């Protein structure tokens, strides 16, 4: 069985209600190890909710999420250690510098040689120049990049990214896509975005979430041909 056939994340019948709205309704989804899943859909279709549920930040109203066979909401620290998540919020403390933020999270993730890991990650993401600045003084884009550094610092197997491209300039967008494509190619990545053209080359599969809780998973080529047909119509 290749790495692409091993079920890693299994969402069984998950629903999430924010009364009176239903963000997700009886969603079933299997994600295999090494898969790069692009999650697309209009605003309010439940993309962020899905990322937050898989990351263990919020509980589904119904259903379960298993990672490597373990329920994420009963997961051990080891299972949590295998996940890196970046939501709309970069999870940074404003009055700590970029480096202090990374050291803090690095310690909690039990990274043995934090300083060299930070140096390595900062070089990879080209954020050395912002490490000594307080997070509060950083631009939205740089906060986002620092938040991404925090996400991948502990070398997680699963990377959950909720609109990582928002607020990034064109150069940063290219850098981020290159990092994801080259350096993190062996990871399982779930990524939501409205910028499908930017993310499509990264994807090995696409999950389309509709406003009426229709969900379809398809290969990128099929999705691209559907988009072409829509444009021609």
């Amino acid at each position, binding site marked *: 069985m290749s790495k692409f056939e091993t079920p890693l994340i299994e969402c069984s019948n998950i629903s999430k209600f924010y009364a009176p709205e239903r963000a997700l309704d009886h969603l079933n989804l299997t994600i295999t190890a090494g898969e790069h899943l692009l999650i697309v859909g209009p605003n309010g279709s439940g993309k962020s909710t899905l990322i937050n549920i898989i990351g263990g930040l919020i*509980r589904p109203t119904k259903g379960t999420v298993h990672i490597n066979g373990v329920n994420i909401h009963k997961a051990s620290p080891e299972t949590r250690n295998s996940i890196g*998540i970046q939501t709309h919020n970069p999870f*940074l403390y404003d009055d*700590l510098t970029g480096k202090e933020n990374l050291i803090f*999270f690095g310690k909690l993730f039990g990274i043995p040689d934090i300083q060299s890991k930070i140096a390595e990650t900062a070089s990879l993401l080209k954020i050395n120049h912002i490490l000594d600045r307080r997070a509060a003084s950083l631009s939205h884009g740089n906060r986002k990049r620092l938040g991404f550094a925090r996400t991948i610092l502990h070398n997680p197997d699963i990377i959950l990214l909720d609109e990582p491209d928002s607020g990034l300039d064109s150069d940063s967008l290219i850098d981020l896509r290159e990092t994801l494509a080259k350096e993190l190619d062996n990871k399982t990545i779930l990524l939501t975005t409205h910028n499908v053209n930017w993310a499509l080359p990264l994807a090995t599969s696409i999950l389309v979430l509709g406003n009426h809780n229709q969900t379809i998973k398809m290969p990128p080529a099929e999705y691209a041909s559907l988009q072409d047909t829509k444009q021609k119509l």
Partner: protein
Amino acid sequence: MKTYLTQIWTISSKDIRLEIRTRQMTVSIIVIVIALLIVTNLAIPNSADTMFATSATVIWLCILIASFLVVMRNLVIEYDPIGFHGLIICPVPRDAIYLGKALSNLIFLLAIEAILFPLSSILFNIPLLTLTVAVITVSATLGIAAAGTLFAAMSVNTKAREIMLPVLFFPAVIPIALTAIETTQHALQTNYGSAIWQDIGVLLTLSIAITTTSAILFTFAIDE
């Protein structure tokens, strides 16, 4: 075990570092507490009969107000900008998160009390700087910080958290505050003797019970 203690200290030391850097909490709370002490000292007649009762009550009321402001501020650190989610994503047991936050609350309160008690001793002219008063203070502050941390976590995800926190916090700490006031009065009375250590035992037991219960309940409190 070492990892667990390291996680607790990492969370606490981050709060302490943030406070040392910004001084947003301690300076304002110390000003409020000093103002309260001076006003009550000048306004309340200080007769020999009621001196110990009045001073102990005023001091513990100041500590209660300071405690509320400390846990409120420490709540805001986690809510704005990142909420407890920033800690939940880490592979850290929930009770370690709780103990880390409770420890930083305890340290902030003890730092404020280190200023409050000498000042009160001068203003009320009572012998507050003794070992027994110190043990009473640490014991009661532990319980207050523990309860405050739990209720801060319970209110952080509610829309009306500024209302929820005092509504939950003040009624919950009344038993420990009353016990602390009474024990402090007894400690100030020179004729009370060694029975004071029984009172302190009760206070410490109450605080440890609150801390243990809160650590267990915290796991449920920070879940959505």
